[in-house]
C-alpha cells in the first residue's frame, strides 16, 4: 500500500472535458494525475465496448451515430433503445446510475434521432469522512463544522439531451449534425479535490456540437470527417469550514466560508478517419487522425490533501493530437480487433498577476503578467484488444454473442514548471497506465437485441481522505472527464477500481 501522504505535494488544477465519445478520441482526454474518475459518461449503448472498446477497424451500429452523426446514415430502420448503466467505485466510494432512452430513425434521405438520459450520482465521499484541511483549519478547531452543511451527502441528478439530424446526398455521401447538452450538477470525483471543504455544489453544463461527413462505398470502405466544438462551463460553489477568532466570545469558532471556482474549457476538434475491408480475407483496417485545440479561460483552484494553497491557475491552452490504426478480422463466428493510438499533447497553463507583484529577484511582474507557468509534453498511447464469438444454442432463434477485451491507456508526460515570483524552475516526469478489462454478451430474444457490458478500470486512484486517522481512498475510471493538473511532487494515490455494468435493449422496428 503506498503512502497516500505523498500526495501532499500535489498542487492541482483540473478541468473536465465531457461527452460520451471522449473515449473514442474525438475529444482527447488530458490527464496529469492518475486520478480515478467515475464512469459517468459511458452510458450510450455500444456493440463493441465489451471488446475493449475497439473502434477503428470495426463498425459500431449502436454507438457510431453518436460519435459521428453522419454515420446515422447507416441506420435504415427505426429502432428504439434503452441502456441502463450502473457504475460503482471500490472501497465504498460512490457510484452512479444512468438511464438513457432514445431512438434513431430514417425516412427517405433524412435520418436522425434523439436521446434523453437521466443520471443519478452518489457523492464521492461518505458522510463520516473528512478531508485533511489546510493547516490553518487544524488549530484548536472542532473536526467538523458546527453549521448546517448543504447537499454533501445527497445524490445529484444530471440530465442529458441529444439530437441529431442528417441527410444522404447520394453517391454514398452523408452529412449530419448533432448536439448534446448536459445539465450537470455533479461531476464524479470533483468533491475529492477541495481539501478541507465541507460541501461542493456543482452546477453548469456542457455543450457538444458536431458536424460530420461520411462517404460509404458498397465495398465496405468508408472515409469520414468530423468537426467538434465543445464548451464546458461548470461552477463549483465550495463551502469550507473556516475557523476564526470570535472577539465577542473570545474563542476560536467555526463558520462557513464560501468560495466559487469556475471551470471553463472550450475545444475545437477535427478528426479524419478511414476504414476498408482487405479483399475478402475477412480483415478490415482503419486509421484516424485527430487534432484538438483547447482553450482554458479559467481553471479551478483545486486543493488536494495537505496542499494548503496551490498556485492559482487562471488560463491555459492545449494542443492535443492522436493518430490511430486498427485491424479487425471476421472469420466465421469469431471476430478479432486491435486498435493502437498514439497521442502527443502539449499543454501550457499559467497564473496571471491580478496586480503588480514583486519577485524575489527584485523585478516586478506587472498586472496580467504570468506569475507561474507549467508546460506539459505528453506522449500517451492507447491499445485496445477485443474478441467475440457467436455460440449457437439449440432451440434459440439467434446465437449467443460473447465478447471480451482489454484496453490500456499509457500516460507519460514531462513537466517544466517556472515560478516567476520565486524565480525557481523544475522538471518532472510522470507515467502510469490504466487498464480496463471488458466482457459482454448479446442475444436477440423475441426480436429484441439484449446486450450486457461489463468493464472494470484499474490503475487510477483518488486522493486520500482522513477517516479518523486512517487514510482511505475514493473513487474511479477512465473514459470520462480529462484532468490537467500541476503536480508539485511524486504522484501517489490510493488505488481504486471502477466497475461498470450496462444492459442495453435495442428494438428494431419495421
Amino acid at each position: 500500500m503506498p503512502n497516500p501522504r505523498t500526495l501532499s505535494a500535489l498542487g492541482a488544477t483540473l478541468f473536465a472535458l465531457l461527452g460520451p465519445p471522449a473515449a473514442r478520441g474525438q475529444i482527447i482526454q488530458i490527464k496529469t494525475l492518475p486520478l480515478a474518475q467515475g464512469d459517468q459518461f459511458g452510458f450510450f449503448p455500444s456493440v463493441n465496448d465489451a471488446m475493449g472498446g475497439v473502434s477503428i477497424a470495426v463498425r459500431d451500429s449502436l454507438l457510431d451515430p453518436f460519435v459521428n452523426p453522419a454515420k446515422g446514415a447507416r441506420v435504415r430502420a427505426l429502432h428504439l433503445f434503452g441502456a441502463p448503466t450502473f457504475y460503482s467505485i471500490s472501497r465504498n466510494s460512490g457510484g452512479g446510475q444512468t438511464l438513457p432512452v432514445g431512438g434513431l430513425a430514417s425516412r427517405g434521405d433524412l435520418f436522425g434521432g434523439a436521446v434523453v438520459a437521466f443520471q443519478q450520482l452518489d457523492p464521492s465521499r461518505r458522510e463520516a469522512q473528512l478531508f485533511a484541511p489546510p493547516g490553518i483549519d487544524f488549530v484548536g478547531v472542532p473536526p467538523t463544522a458546527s453549521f448546517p452543511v448543504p447537499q454533501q451527502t445527497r445524490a445529484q441528478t444530471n440530465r442529458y439531451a441529444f439530437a441529431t439530424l442528417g441527410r444522404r446526398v447520394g453517391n454514398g455521401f452523408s452529412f449530419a449534425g448533432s448536439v448534446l447538452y448536459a445539465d450537470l450538477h455533479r461531476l464524479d470525483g470533483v468533491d475529492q479535490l477541495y481539501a478541507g471543504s465541507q460541501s461542493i455544489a456543482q452546477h453548469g453544463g456542457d455543450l457538444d456540437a458536431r458536424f460530420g461527413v461520411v462517404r460509404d462505398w458498397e465495398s465496405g470502405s468508408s472515409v469520414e470527417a468530423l468537426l467538434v466544438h465543445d464548451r464546458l462551463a461548470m461552477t463549483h460553489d465550495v463551502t469550507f469550514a473556516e475557523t476564526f477568532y470570535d472577539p465577542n466570545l473570545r474563542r476560536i469558532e467555526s463558520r462557513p466560508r464560501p468560495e466559487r471556482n469556475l471551470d471553463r474549457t472550450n475545444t475545437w476538434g477535427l478528426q479524419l478517419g478511414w476504414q476498408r475491408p482487405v479483399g475478402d480475407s475477412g480483415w478490415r483496417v482503419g486509421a484516424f487522425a485527430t487534432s484538438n485545440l483547447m482553450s482554458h479561460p479559467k481553471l479551478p483552484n483545486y486543493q488536494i490533501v495537505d496542499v494548503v494553497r496551490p498556485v492559482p491557475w487562471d488560463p491555459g491552452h492545449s494542443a492535443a493530437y492522436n493518430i490511430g490504426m486498427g485491424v479487425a478480422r471476421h472469420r466465421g463466428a469469431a471476430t478479432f480487433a486491435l486498435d493502437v493510438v498514439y497521442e502527443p499533447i502539449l499543454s501550457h497553463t499559467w497564473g496571471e498577476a491580478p496586480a503588480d507583484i514583486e519577485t524575489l529577484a527584485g523585478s516586478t511582474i506587472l498586472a496580467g503578467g504570468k506569475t507561474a507557468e507549467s508546460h506539459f509534453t505528453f506522449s500517451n498511447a492507447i491499445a485496445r484488444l477485443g474478441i467475440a464469438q457467436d455460440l449457437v444454442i439449440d432451440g434459440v432463434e439467434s446465437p449467443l454473442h460473447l465478447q471480451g477485451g482489454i484496453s490500456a491507456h499509457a500516460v507519460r508526460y514531462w513537466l517544466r514548471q517556472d515560478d516567476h515570483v520565486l524565480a525557481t524552475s523544475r522538471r518532472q516526469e510522470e507515467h502510469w497506465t490504466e487498464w480496463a478489462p471488458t466482457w459482454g454478451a448479446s442475444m436477440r430474444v423475441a426480436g429484441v437485441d439484449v446486450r450486457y457490458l461489463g468493464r472494470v478500470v484499474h490503475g487510477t486512484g483518488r486522493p486520500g481522505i482522513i477517516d479518523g486517522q486512517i487514510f482511505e481512498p475514493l473513487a474511479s475510471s477512465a473514459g470520462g472527464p480529462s484532468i490537467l493538473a500541476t503536480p508539485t511532487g511524486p504522484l501517489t494515490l490510493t488505488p481504486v477500481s471502477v466497475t461498470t455494468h450496462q444492459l442495453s435493449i435495442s428494438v428494431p422496428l419495421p
Partner: protein
Amino acid sequence: MIRQRCRVLAAGLLGVTLLSGCGSTMTDGGTTQPPPPLTLDDQLRAQFGIWGVVPIGAVTQPNAALVELGRSLFFDKVLSGNRDVACATCHSPLSHGADVLSLSIGTGGTGDGAARTLGAGRQFTPRNAPSLINTGLGSFYIFWDGRVSDLGGFRTPAGAALPGGLTSVLAAQAMFPVTNRNEMRGEVGDHDVFGNPNELAPIDSAQYGAIWGAVMQRLVAINGYVAKFNAAFPGVPASSLGFQHAANAIAAFEQTAFTFTSSPFDHYVAHDDRAMTTEAKQGALLFFTKARCSSCHFGPLLGGQSFASAGVPQLGPGVGKDAPLDLGQDPQFQGQAQRFFFRVPSLRNVELTAPYMHDGAFATLEAVVRHYNKVEETLRNYDASQLDPRLRAQYRGDPATIEAILAATSPIIRQPLGLSDTEIHQLVAFLQSLTDPAARDLSSMIPASVPSGLPVTAAISP
C-alpha cells in the same frame, strides 16, 4: 501492399504504445525529482496553523446611543479632576488611539502631541499610552502590567469595590484612569481650568466608589449628559446610574471606533494570497520562524494574550515601591510575578502606534526589530539621546539595572537572532502589512463639541 503497410504501421504504433506505458502503474510510476520546496504561501500558511493565526470575526455592534454617549465621554475633559484632560488626550484619534510620546503627560499638562508639556510639579506617567486600536477584540489583559484582566471574571485594583454591570474588560479598564492622580484625577489642592477647587482630588485613592460617584455627579449635572444617558440606558433611573454605565459607554465607543481588521494581512489570512507583497510574506515567514516573534506574538491578534520580558531599557519615574524601576507585571494579580514582564501587545496596526515598548524606548519598528535581533547588545548600548530631552535623565542605564533586565530577559531572545539587514527590512514590511488602511486617518471620529462645553482637543501627530 495495403496489408503490408498496415502491418508496418500497426507494429510501429504498438511499439510506441508499449514504450509509453513502460509497465508503470499509478502507485509506483513516475521518475520524479525530490519534491520542490513548498511555496512561500504554503510555508506561511503552515505557520499559521502552528501559531493559531486565524481570521478575526466581526464585533457585535452596540446600540448607537450607547456609542454616542461613549464618544462624548471619551472626548470630554470633564472626566478629569482639573477638567483639563480627556481620554482622547493620551488616546487621540489623530495619533491612532495613542499619543506620540514615549511616556504620557497627564493632568496639568498643556499642549498636544509631541509638543505637550508637563505641568509644574508633575511628572510623566510611568508607561507609554497603549493604542486603543483593536483593544475591543476581546483582550484578556489590559494595561502594560495586566492589572485589569478578565479570565472568567474581572480582576482589578478596585477588588470588591468594582461595581457590577460592566460589560467587558475594556469597560473595566475605563473605570480606572479617572482614579489615577497622575493621569486624570489630579493632586490634592489642584484647581480646575476655571479656577475652581478640584473636588475629586481630595478623595482617598483607595475610595474608588467615592471617586466614581463624584465623577458621576459631575456628569448628571450636565443636561446634555442626562439626555444621552437616558437614550443609552432607557429604563435606568438617574439615581441608579453609576460610573460603570459611563465606562460601558466608553468601551462601546472604543470598540466601535477603534476596531480595524481589514489589513493586507487580514485579507491574506482570509485566503487571498495576493493581498501581501512578497517582501511582507518573507517577513511574515521570518516572524514565525527565525525571528521567533510568534513565540509571544501568537494567535489571531498576534499578541495580547501573555506577558514577556523583552530586555527593554528602563525609562521613566518607575512604579510603586520599586521606583525608579518599573518591574512590570503586577504581582497582586498574577501571583507569580516575574521581574520586567510586561503585557505582550497585539501587533495589529502596530505601524501606526510609535513609539514602541512599554516605555516608548524605541521610536521606529526597525529599531524594535534590531533590538530583538541583538537584545543584549542593544540594551547595553542604548542611546538615550534618541529620547525626548525631558526624558533622557530618566533613563536607567546603570549596570545593575542592565544586568537585572538581562537576567530576566526571555531565553527565547537572549541569544542574537542573526537577522540580516534584508531580513530586518522584510520583517518591517510584514509589520506594515498589519495596517488597516482605514486606521490611518481617524479624525472623523472627533466630535465638534461635548456636553460639558469644554474644548475638544486631541493630540496631533508631529
